[in-house]
């Protein structure tokens, strides 16, 4: 019993002594050597977006601060301007490359720096695509690589037979397309266009005068047509030319149309009742 008591007495004494020694050691340690590291140092980051709207709004940029574990921010914009806002906006003087630097700091004085070079460009209002009609005048060797029989770009065997070529009469160059009176041949070509844009398709035609007849040029929505009935059902606009005043003089036709919700359209040419000739296609954006 006595021994036990002795132990109980000594235990706190030793403990106290131990703590004291320990705490003394701490005190005389050089500052910082045993202190905790900054476990959540700041990490600077940002994104930005260009202003959208009329006039000079394109020069106004909004910055979104994506930094973590930071409390204060310094933004530097090339040219000398600074800001300490969290999410600043800045108006650049004009087009060019500008460096933007964000320094994010926490309360312990730890910094993180993030820089990005921004290319400021005035957005251009895109002009409507001007599509290229291939073999527009049905001439031999008129494709970009110097090949072509004048009708290679106009074939679609699912819709009808291939057109014939005539050398007289022509409206332009030395050849024109010929649609015999059997009316079982077609010409077809797909064009890439801008949606919701106004275009004018121009061409020339002439009809023989033995029988009553006509030649129809249709502008179809979309491409990939493989059935004549459904192709004609997709028409945006068409024009049926039936001027039979002269079998040798060409008549000019202008078809204005709007592409609507289409980025691809097709041209389809058919004839009815009499031999027809067609020449010199062109298309212009309005």
């Amino acid at each position, binding site marked *: 019993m006595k021994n036990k008591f002795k132990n109980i007495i000594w235990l706190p004494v030793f403990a106290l002594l131990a703590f004291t020694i320990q705490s003394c050691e701490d005190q005389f340690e050089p500052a910082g050597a045993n202190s905790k590291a900054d476990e959540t140092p700041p990490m600077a980051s940002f994104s930005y977006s260009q202003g959208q*709207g009329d006039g000079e709004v394109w020069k106004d940029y909004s910055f979104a*601060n*994506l930094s973590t574990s930071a409390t204060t921010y310094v933004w530097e914009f090339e040219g000398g301007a600074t800001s300490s806002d*969290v*999410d600043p*906006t800045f108006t650049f003087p004009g087009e060019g490359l500008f460096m933007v630097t964000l320094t994010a700091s926490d309360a312990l004085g730890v910094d993180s720096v993030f820089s990005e070079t921004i290319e400021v460009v005035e957005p251009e209002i895109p002009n409507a695509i001007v599509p290229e009609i291939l073999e527009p005048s049905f001439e031999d060797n008129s494709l970009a690589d110097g090949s072509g029989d004048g009708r290679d770009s106009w074939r679609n065997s699912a819709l009808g037979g291939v057109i014939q070529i005539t050398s007289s009469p022509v409206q332009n160059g030395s050849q024109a397309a010929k649609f015999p009176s059997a009316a079982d041949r077609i010409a077809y070509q797909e064009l890439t266009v801008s949606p*919701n844009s106004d275009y004018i398709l121009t061409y020339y035609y002439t009809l023989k005068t033995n029988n009553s007849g006509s030649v129809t040029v249709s502008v179809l929505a979309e491409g990939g047509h493989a059935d004549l009935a459904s192709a004609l059902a997709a028409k945006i606009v068409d024009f049926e030319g039936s001027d039979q005043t002269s079998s040798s003089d060409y008549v000019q036709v202008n078809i204005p149309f709007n592409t609507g919700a289409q980025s691809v359209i097709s041209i389809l040419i058919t004839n009815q009742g009499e031999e027809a000739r067609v020449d010199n296609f062109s298309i212009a954006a309005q």
Partner: protein
Amino acid sequence: MKNITKHIKKLNILIIAITLFSCSEDFLSPAPTSALNAATFFETEADLEAALVNMYDGIQGVNSTQSNDNHAIQVEFYLTEMRSDNTRTKSSEGEAAQFESYSIESTNGIVDDYYRSFYNVIFRANTVLAHLDVATSENLAKIEGEAKFIRAYAYFNLVRLYGDLPLVTSVISPVDTDIQFTRVATSTIYDLIETDLSTAIGGLDNSSKLRGSKAAAQALLAKVYLTQGANYTEAQQLCEAAMGSGFTLEPNFKDVFYSELNNEIIFAIGYQEDSDDSQNFSAEWLNAVGRTSGVNYTTSDVRTALDALGGNRTLYSYRVDTDQPTQFQVVKYLPEDDDALGITSNVTDRTKAGNDWIVLRYADVLLMHVEAIMAGGNDTSVQAALDSFELVRLRAGLTADADGTITKQELLDERRVELAFENHRLFDLIRFGEAQNILSAFSTATGGSFNATDLLLPIPQREINLSLGQLTQNQGYN
């Protein structure tokens, strides 16, 4: 003592007997003959139909004031309208007021409510998709389309609110933690949304407004494209397809909200008054009728816009709170009579309102059509856009666009006053690239603390805790 020993011996025998019996599997897991369970439930198409309806039940949410229930779309206004410049709490109280001041905590219960509600909806849709094998070939495409429409709708809401998300495309169990707690990039989420909606467009028809339909899927996919700032021509085609499906604007703006399932509605979440299928958001918008003292009260900012640009819509958009005349309530979705406005309601208990929640309506599609034609530009003068814009303006008692050119600002303003308090404003601001400018100015004026990182909600802290830290938090939240 001896007796007790005897009894213990008897007991031992009994225990041994039970143990022996329990070796039989039937004893441990008997298949119930009078009830349904997950393993045996899906046997016929009728079971799938029940599972489809269950998805809408999930979106509808529970009408209760219990924080632990899933309230789903009934709390959506907190995360959208009250985080925009349109509405606020009446008394700036509680966690509901975190939204208007842009000081949302990751522990906010409403943020968690919506997140778990819509993941639950995704689970319900995935459950349907997991059992498509019992569908007849005749109805397979429709059932699959409907489930995928709802899954896309849920993901589209979540991805716009929370950013990167866990991608769950099958029925998973609690041990599938990698799927549950790994966030994938928004672009991957959008890929799923687009694929699902394309499937839905192919499989659905326009036979219902309260369930997924072809037109609803077309309109939603158009909005998905516009949100990503891509595929404007496809978006325009989708709008035009939905526009050609027989919907028309209600001549009287009031009827959009007080004539259920009218010609303008493309997709709505149905509610039935005074029943378990009722909703309480209508009551929360009134003065101390619901659990709150009043939320989704209009800001002076939105009233200024409505007064200037609303035409005859203004009357049916906000009204004076007669109990507190300095405050103004939302008029859309009222669960009570308003004699001055000619609004009647047949609900007995206002906290059990039957007003359907409109998700998609024709006016929204018409204005999306203008937006698709504008195609990210600053304005448009295309006739098709002017025509759609004019339809919306004429119904509001206004005239067509005066100068024949619709600017981006005019379109944003028109959407604001047409679709006020229908949970569009925040998404519109973000989609138009104006959220940071407008909301920081609004927040400065109203004493809030808006930062760019407030455009996303925090991932609920509860989810992060469940994931044991595997789920990462959004920037700007702790």
